[in-house]
């Protein structure tokens, strides 16, 4: 099964309606903090040779497959690019990413990934408790938040924040105060040739380059590795776009909304996808499925090969090499020809 073009378009338009106004509002509020952009970073990196990059997303396989342990055991010398939601898991397990991406314009939730100094003032929200993004947040949220504040403060000077102008200004304030270096980008919201294009409006406001997002921060991190870092190859971990076999529907991200559509059985809004590489069936929802379909489109445009080393999930198809993480870390370590390692899947 795949999304039809009409369904793909409907989800894209719904997400634009959901995020554009807030993103534009935040872009205005972030103006005082704009200094360097992703193009400045690219210029700073220009003399360096192209290397493979590792993108760490926050899907449940990140902890279920012990991806960070494998990276530390085998070693990896290239740039590590991390989605904001995976930062806590990386730091708690002794891995400091060189780059962290953030893009979601939610005004209250996302700052939690950096340690939220105002956590007790936020609206009640069980988003983090219900999901498998970072199980450390499932209990004793306030203590875990204090730990995260301390971890980010300790390692911030070694992390570059690749921050979208759509992000809450509180994230810019928090990460600057902690000592991170910030590099800005605009999300490419819509077709810049459309009348009243949001992308063109935000570009005229701040003159910051617009980057394709992929609809979520993990894919944005992969786009960054492909386009700004100009990586020789990109391996991704924690990019499940789905829930592991056996996940309860109430532990999926859109459960409350699916209840509105299917009051008697919200699970009817979820879909089972068989992964032939794993010989397992994973559960996905319309949003996650949209992410996977987008990634399959984008990978066709990518200049460098992509290896999915998640060892879980539903992200497979033409242009994506679904491989064990240790195998690809060895390939990168040995410096062999990455394109020769790809095969049609």
């Amino acid at each position, binding site marked *: 099964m795949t999304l039809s073009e009409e369904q793909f378009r409907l989800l894209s338009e719904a997400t634009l309606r959901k995020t554009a106004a807030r993103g534009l509002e935040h872009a205005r509020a972030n103006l005082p903090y704009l200094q360097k952009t992703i193009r400045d970073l690219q210029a700073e990196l220009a003399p360096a040779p192209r290397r493979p990059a590792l993108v760490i997303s926050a899907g449940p396989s990140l902890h279920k497959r012990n991806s960070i342990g494998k990276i530390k055991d085998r070693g990896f010398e290239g740039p590590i690019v991390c989605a904001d939601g995976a930062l806590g898991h990386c730091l708690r397990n002794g891995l400091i990413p060189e780059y962290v991406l953030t893009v979601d314009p939610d005004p209250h939730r996302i700052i939690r990934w950096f340690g939220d100094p105002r956590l007790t003032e936020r609206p009640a929200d069980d988003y983090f408790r219900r999901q498998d993004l970072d199980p450390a947040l499932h209990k004793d949220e306030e203590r875990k938040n204090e730990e995260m504040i301390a971890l980010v403060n300790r390692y911030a000077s070694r992390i570059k924040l690749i921050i*979208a102008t759509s992000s809450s200004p509180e994230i810019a304030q928090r990460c600057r105060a902690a000592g991170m270096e910030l590099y800005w980008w605009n999300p490419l919201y819509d077709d810049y040739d459309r009348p009243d294009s949001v992308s063109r409006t935000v570009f005229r406001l701040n003159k910051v380059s617009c980057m394709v997002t992929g609809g979520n921060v993990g894919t944005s991190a992969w786009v960054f590795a492909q386009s700004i870092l100009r990586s020789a190859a990109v391996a991704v971990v924690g990019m499940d776009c789905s829930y592991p076999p056996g996940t309860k529907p109430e532990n999926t991200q859109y459960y409350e909304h699916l209840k509105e559509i299917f009051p008697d059985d919200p699970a009817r809004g979820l879909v089972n996808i068989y992964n032939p590489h794993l010989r397992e069936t994973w559960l996905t929802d319309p949003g996650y499925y949209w992410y996977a379909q987008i990634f399959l489109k984008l990978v066709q445009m990518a200049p460098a090969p992509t290896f999915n080393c998640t060892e879980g999930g539903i992200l497979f198809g033409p242009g994506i090499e679904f491989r064990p993480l240790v195998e690809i870390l060895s390939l990168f370590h040995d410096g062999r020809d990455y394109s020769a390692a790809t095969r049609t899947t």
Partner: protein
Amino acid sequence: MSKLLKGNYEIDRKEDNETAAAANNDFTKVFESKALEKLGGSIAFVVKADQFVWDGDDDVK
């Protein structure tokens, strides 16, 4: 609405066919609902002219 969904493999067994059809119908209902807006992604997505980064073309000048 079934024309909106494209299958990409053949299913052999009749009962599997019926299960898949029911799943497709349910999924289609999601796209017909008012809740669709709440089900979207973290941030808007579009891609144009096979470009990952747009630097504003004429707006730069």
